């Protein structure tokens, strides 16, 4: 039996991205300039980082609503630690470690107290939004060390450092999801947690891991945000980043119901969202329209996700995974004559389920 090569699922979102880029470049000659592409990428990196972390969480069937304010918390703590005399690199580490701790906290409460991720991360959203404001009296903290700017403003061979960091992170995450036992387990937990537990998967460890990764991504997002502005704002990230990160992942094909999705998809989703908002700027659409347009994009993405789940599983998966031209990869006798009535009359089944 030869392994069947299937079109990657990300082709769809990639097509949409190309289409949007074409439309934008037709509407405005400025769009396809190198300068604008750089701005687009740079503006998109924070959301993209959050989307990567969010992907891990969504794959287990969870959601992380705390990443937005985690940016403010970690970015502020980086600025404050430099104010207290820490070197620029240590400030970066502080931010990432704090992000990790917030994530571990989320994961621990979700797993051990058995609360819904929505509630837990919504609470930590509030907590981590308040801490920087309490610490500074809601004042911003200026970063004095120019070296810290490297995270957000530096570039290597013309490629912005944040974009390079994003590429490295994406590569590492792809390896984790595709090449390690943990990756298999994460998909399994999101696909069927009960079955995974029976198969011996340590669900708690996976839950801690995905929220920790999401927290680390938020910490890096905090570093980039503070570094680009060279000011720690206690209210950074509380706006669109949160919303857009989930949107990117979902638009990129990561299922809100767990078990389905890829890093590449989420990354393409983040680029699409960044392209749409950048394109609207360049074309000159009133900025008030942006959340509306992105909201509609999210609704479309989520509706598609919900619809593909609602189609009968076999049929839906066949449609999803099989290339349109190829015959459906179905078990021959699965499609053949219905013989189950011979060994399982309806009554017996019914009564057996009663246990």
């Amino acid at each position, binding site marked *: 039996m030869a392994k069947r090569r299937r079109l990657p699922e990300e082709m769809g979102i990639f097509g949409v991205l190309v289409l949007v880029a074409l439309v934008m470049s037709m509407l405005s000659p400025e769009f396809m300039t190198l300068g604008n592409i750089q701005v687009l990428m740079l503006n998109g990196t924070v959301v993209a980082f959050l989307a990567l972390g969010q992907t891990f969480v969504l794959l287990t069937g969870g959601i992380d609503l705390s990443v937005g304010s985690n940016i403010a918390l970690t970015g502020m703590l980086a600025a404050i630690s430099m104010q207290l005399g820490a070197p620029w690199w240590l400030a970066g580490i502080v931010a990432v470690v704090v992000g990790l701790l917030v994530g571990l906290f989320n994961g621990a409460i979700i797993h051990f107290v058995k609360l819904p991720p929505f509630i837990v991360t919504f609470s930590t959203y509030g907590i981590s939004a308040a801490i920087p404001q309490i610490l500074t009296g809601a004042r911003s903290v200026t970063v004095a060390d120019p070296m810290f700017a490297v995270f957000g403003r530096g570039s290597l061979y013309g490629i912005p450092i944040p974009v390079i960091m994003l590429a490295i992170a994406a590569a590492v995450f792809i390896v984790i999801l595709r090449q*390690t036992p943990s990756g*298999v387990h994460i998909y399994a937990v999101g696909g069927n947690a009960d079955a995974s537990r029976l198969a011996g998967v340590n669900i708690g460890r996976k839950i801690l891991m995905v929220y920790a990764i999401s927290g680390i991504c938020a910490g890096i997002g905090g570093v980039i945000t503070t570094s680009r502005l060279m000011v720690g704002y206690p209210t950074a990230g509380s706006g669109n980043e949160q919303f857009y990160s989930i949107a990117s992942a979902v638009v990129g094909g990561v299922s809100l119901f767990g078990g389905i999705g890829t890093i590449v998809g989420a990354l393409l989703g983040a680029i699409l969202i960044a392209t749409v908002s950048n394109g609207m700027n360049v074309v000159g659409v009133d900025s008030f329209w942006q959340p509306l347009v992105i909201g509609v994009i999210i609704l479309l993405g989520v509706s598609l996700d919900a619809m593909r789940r609602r189609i009968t599983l076999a049929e839906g998966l066949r449609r999803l995974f099989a290339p349109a031209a190829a015959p459906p990869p179905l078990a021959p006798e699965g499609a053949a004559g219905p013989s189950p009535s011979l060994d399982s*009359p309806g009554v017996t089944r019914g*009564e*057996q389920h009663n246990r």
Partner: protein
Amino acid sequence: MADVLRAVGIRKLFAGVPALDGVDLTVTAGKVVGLVGHNGAGKSTLLKVLSGAYQPDGGELFLGEERVSFHSPATAIQAGVSTVYQELSLLPNLTVAENTFLGRELRRGGRLDKVAMREAAQALIDRFQIPVDAARRVGDYPVATRQLLEIAIATSRNARFLLLDEPTTSLEGEQVEPLLRLVRGLATDEGLGIMFINHKLDELFAISDEVVALVNGRVQIEGPTDRVNRSEVITAIAGSELPERRVPAATGLATGAGAGEHAVALSVRGLRNDQLKGVDLEAREGRILGIYGLVGSGRTEFLRTLVGLLPTSGGSVSLFDRDYRPGGPADAQRHGVVYLTEERKIDGIVPGLTSITNVVLPVVRQYTRGGLLDHRRLRSVATDLLTQLGIRGDIHAPVVTLSGGNQQKVLLARALAQKPRVLLLDEPTKGVDIGVKAEIHQLLRSLAHDEGLAVVMVSSEEEEILEVADEVVTFVLGSCDGREVAASDLTVQGLRQSAWEAA
């Protein structure tokens, strides 16, 4: 006012197979009809036809002299036929009064008349002497009390006939008595006509006026309780008209060696928890131990306890002469104990993953190089197992695209990938076609007899138990005495009898 609910010549087919094959049954006001029958004899189907949940394919229903047809449970309730199912249906987060008046709330001036509802509900439950406060939430009361409330509230909707589906299954010894008293009182004092399905013959004979035994969708025995012979009932449900043939033990030469010569792999002594009331048994290397029992007798719970999915409250288990207390499936797996679930879709397959990934899911950690998955070896391990099991279908596609039988093979391959020493199988051929069933049976024999695994198999199908198992033990109401009978000495009838006699 109608004083009888009559079913005449009721037929009901599922996929062309008759579940009810011309059943006549009369429920009379003021009387309790006890309905018994084996798994799949059609009891629940009959109940669902009478309650409007199923439409019969033939036959008629009468209320008194009037012909009726119940299009839905709601029509049946309106006509005065209420049903209490096995599962509790009251909402635990609402009060007793709110549950009583759910969907028909009393109003005064457009607002809920909470006082009137509470008083009416309290009057209702006081009449039945149920020690409950109507203003408190249903969830505050234990299951036994809720079961009484279910019945009381069911009668409150002007019910004249009450259908009860195994209401005592979830109750402990001393909790049964009040329920039986309530049911008896409803018939004698309130004049309700009651149909009572029960697996426990003692209870059934204690409270019913008439006994009806259903066998293969037909009424086999019916009559006043004092005239019906209990052992006749057991014989009937066990299937006296089944030919006295022994199912040939296809275990062949391997069964020649007595069970005693095989080393004990798993020894269970007095195992107890919420569902198990004391289980004793031994499973041996190289043997297949069949576990038989009625649905709900604790077989599944027993297997799940052995892999740490359910807690134990007493007794002991030893595995190869060492104390064995699994902390969960992963821990059980480390000890070589692997469980194959009965509910393939619920906690078996991970639908979106490929068959290959589903097979290796428990063992991926064992196939890594430098922390990274060794995809080539994983694929070959899975492919070898799946080929050996004769899988048909694309094993690189999501496992849900396979037929039920092939999904079951994937789960069996997953179990084998864990290299078990003790294999616990829960209905291993549930919902698979006959061809695959035979293949699975052959595999199980070879695993035990050739490879020396200790196999424990739960099955509701007598033929399967007799054909595959070497020895058989029976579970009754959550307990098992560990008395083994060689499968070759058993008949289908004898097996059923053993499950019913102790009931």
